[in-house]
């Protein structure tokens, strides 16, 4: 129906959450489209968990509202809950329960009965590859298995939105890669995923959109490439020239689109503003100007640099 496309699946609308004088979340607004993977990135204490908990109907905003599939998290928590799976940054467990019983309990709590419940359990356990661990007591699980079990619990009722709070935290590289695969698979199945992390690089490859938050304020939203370009519209260029490095530096220094020229023996480093095409044009001009170029390389700033640029500069 038209109604479906008319509203974003997740929307933060001027969300504020204060704890006393702490402005945990301050005026955060953004939307996430259907089927997108949204990376929510910020250093510790930025307000990621706080805003995700409001979305998961575990907390109330001081001001503003959050919406899931058009339903207010304040006024229609029941409708939000049916559409949303939440994986918090802690592992809530019961003693004397095994993996199967744990998932079965939550399936029942979501009102799944009979065949539907069996199907949900079967699907979830095979998706998170917990089949072999079904009878294993939860106490004996490794961190990676626990995370998979948590993910299984969050998706047991087949929600259209999944909220994962720092799921990769404390996982070994292998488990991290497996987790990334699972999130990609979920997105491919049409689910919208909001996943948080304090490391941008961890999320960069799997997110369609990222939002960077610090001290409760949203600093940048967009695809990784967009943010990269927006924050650092220039590229680092490194040129190796035979002989006349000094004159090359002078030649470059005279240009408007080049800055930060540095000499390092045979190498000359500088930052160049512009697209790759203008970079190619620059190289042609260099060659035509009779500089003996033996190497020409460029790269944009690393994600870490971008993250540092975004988070340090704006709020302080």
């Amino acid at each position, binding site marked *: 129906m038209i*109604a479906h496309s008319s*509203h974003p699946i997740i929307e933060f609308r001027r969300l504020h959450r204060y704890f006393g004088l702490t402005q945990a979340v301050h005026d955060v607004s953004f939307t996430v489209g259907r089927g997108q993977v949204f990376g929510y990135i910020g250093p510790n204490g930025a307000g990621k968990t706080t805003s995700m908990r409001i979305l*998961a*109907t*575990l907390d*109330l905003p001081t001001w503003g509202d959050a919406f899931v*599939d*058009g*339903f*207010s998290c*304040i*006024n*229609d*928590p*029941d*409708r939000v*809950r*049916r559409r*949303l799976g*939440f994986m*918090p940054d*802690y592992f*809530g*467990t*019961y*003693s*004397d*329960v095994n993996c*199967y*019983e744990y998932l*079965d*309990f*939550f399936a*029942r*709590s*979501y*009102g799944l*009965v*009979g065949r539907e*419940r*069996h199907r949900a*359990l*079967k699907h979830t356990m095979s998706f998170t590859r917990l*089949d072999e661990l*079904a*009878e294993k007591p939860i106490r004996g699980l490794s961190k990676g298995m626990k995370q998979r079990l948590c993910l299984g*619990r969050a998706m047991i*009722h087949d929600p259209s939105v999944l909220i994962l709070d720092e799921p990769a935290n404390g996982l070994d590289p292998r488990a991290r890669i497996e987790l990334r695969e699972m999130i990609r698979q979920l997105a491919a199945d049409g689910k919208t995923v909001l996943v948080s992390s304090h490391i941008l690089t961890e999320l960069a490859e799997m997110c369609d959109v990222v939002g960077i938050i610090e001290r409760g304020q949203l600093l940048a939203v967009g695809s990784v490439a967009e943010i990269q370009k927006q924050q650092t519209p220039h590229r680092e260029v490194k040129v190796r020239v035979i002989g006349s490095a000094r004159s090359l530096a002078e030649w470059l220094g005279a240009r408007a689109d080049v800055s930060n020229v540095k000499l390092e023996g045979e190498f000359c480093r500088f930052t160049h503003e512009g697209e790759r095409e203008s970079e190619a044009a620059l190289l042609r001009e260099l060659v035509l100007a009779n500089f003996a170029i033996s190497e020409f390389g460029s790269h944009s700033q690393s994600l870490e640099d971008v993250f540092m640029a975004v988070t340090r500069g704006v709020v302080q």
Partner: protein
Amino acid sequence: MSSDSTTATTDLAALGRSAKGDALHDRLGPERDSIPSQWSRIEDMLDRIGDRLNPILVKEARQAMKSRQFIVTFSLLLIFGWLWTVLYVAFGVPGIFYAPVGPGVLTGYYVVLSIPLLIVVPYAAFRSLAAEREDGTYELLSITTLSAGQIVQGKLGSALLQMVVYYSALAPCIAFTYLMRGIDVVTIGLVLGYTFVASLLLSIFGLMMATVTRSRHWQILLSVVFVMALLVFGFFWDMGVIASIVNSAELPYTEPVFWLTNLCILSFAVPIGLLCYRIAAGQITFASENRSTPIRVVLMMPQFLLVGWFIYFWAELDEDEAMWVLPCILGIYWVGAGSLLTGETAQLSPRAMRELPQSLLGRMAFTWFNPGSGTGYMFAMLNLLAALLVTLVAVSFGQMLKDPAMLDPLGGWARRLFISLTTNIEPIQQVPDLGEWIPMVVCIFGYAAGYLGLGRIVTLIARRATHVSMLATFLCHVIIITGGVLLPLLLQALISWGDFSTFEYTSLQLTNWIWTLYETIDAPGTGLPTYAWVIVGVVGTVVLLINLLLTAREVEHVRLKAPRRVQEDEAALHPVIAKPHKNSPWD
């Protein structure tokens, strides 16, 4: 009876087994499906029954099978039960062969049974809900489609299950005491029944306590206090029960009044249990939900019971004390409830406003059930007023039965009509004198409305500056109400310093509700001067009216329409119920 224990345990085991069976079955795939056996049909059936049970109950039943606490308690129960039997038989021989030792044996079993029932089960219920909140599993649970009520019910269900298991375990022993003579079935039934009710109420109370605070420090303190309270309660309870077992021969089982008294006591268990349940569920409900209205509905139940039972006992036993005590209890009850209700905030969430009464009738009758401090005050006072009026009608009726001449001012026909209508009703001999009774009732209402209203005005003023919690409001009321007693006493003591021979009731004591009420009820000589109770009544009414004006803002709330998105979803979920139907006064 002994078979109970086996069925209970096999049921539990079956629950666990069927679930595992399903897991296995799912993994083995459809090959196994092709051989429909008797066993798989039974499994299917158990599965379907399990689907209808509360998920928490199912989970906790499975957990209990593996839980050390449960197994240890259960084994200890059996061991001590058998030890007691062996000891009694060993030391009682040969006396037990001819003497009626039933009561003696029963007391031992009872103590063994009462420890798990009165201490372990309620404490386990308390811990199990508190632990969910500490471990964060409560949050995971609260975002499922389970309601807060279902969560509390599930916890209560598993407490009930444990109780049944403990009962069944000791059932053979209790049957054994019956065979030993000296004890009758009625006593055994009463003792077990009361213990069951007590255990259930304590469990609900424990669940309520678990929801009172979230802070870990308070939880620990509360948990210590709760277990101590259970121990003390259990001790006195057991003493009482043992005394009545030993003296069971003297209990008046043949008198209807004995049974009525029991019925009366048990009837109060229902609203108390419901109230604790509602409070527990309310505490853990999402904050935008209307949590107050269900509690207010339950608050009215004890009032009906109180009025009903007191009037009944007054008429039945012909004791007019009942009618003196009833208004006092009603006053205390509603001031107590009101001092908490006035601590609510009047901020209705848009969600709660979707369900407000809409029609004029609905708004007049049900507005006072809406959350809010002003509506809470009015709710308490209107209830008190209604109950006092019913009591007044009852007392006047009693007076008229005794002395129809009272009706003469209305004309002779009124008296004749009354007599002809009430020929079959036997007059009650002891009827409170209306000339003394009415001043007391007026004072009770005046004090309740006045003090509660004053406390509410104070909190309203404080709210302008800061957030005032329910506890703070409650304390404010307590301070004002006790201050009203202590201050005039202190003043009068200062005035008449050194000469206490003339320490008598004066108009200075008008705010001293204890002394004033004492004067109305038990004053030696002339009783309370008329002006005193008139002033109290008038001041109380004035305070009530001021509060009513201050409440106007809360009453203004009107029903909000659900947003379009919610209506769309509602239509998609329940397509048939599209027709707007006006069948309740709420609409």
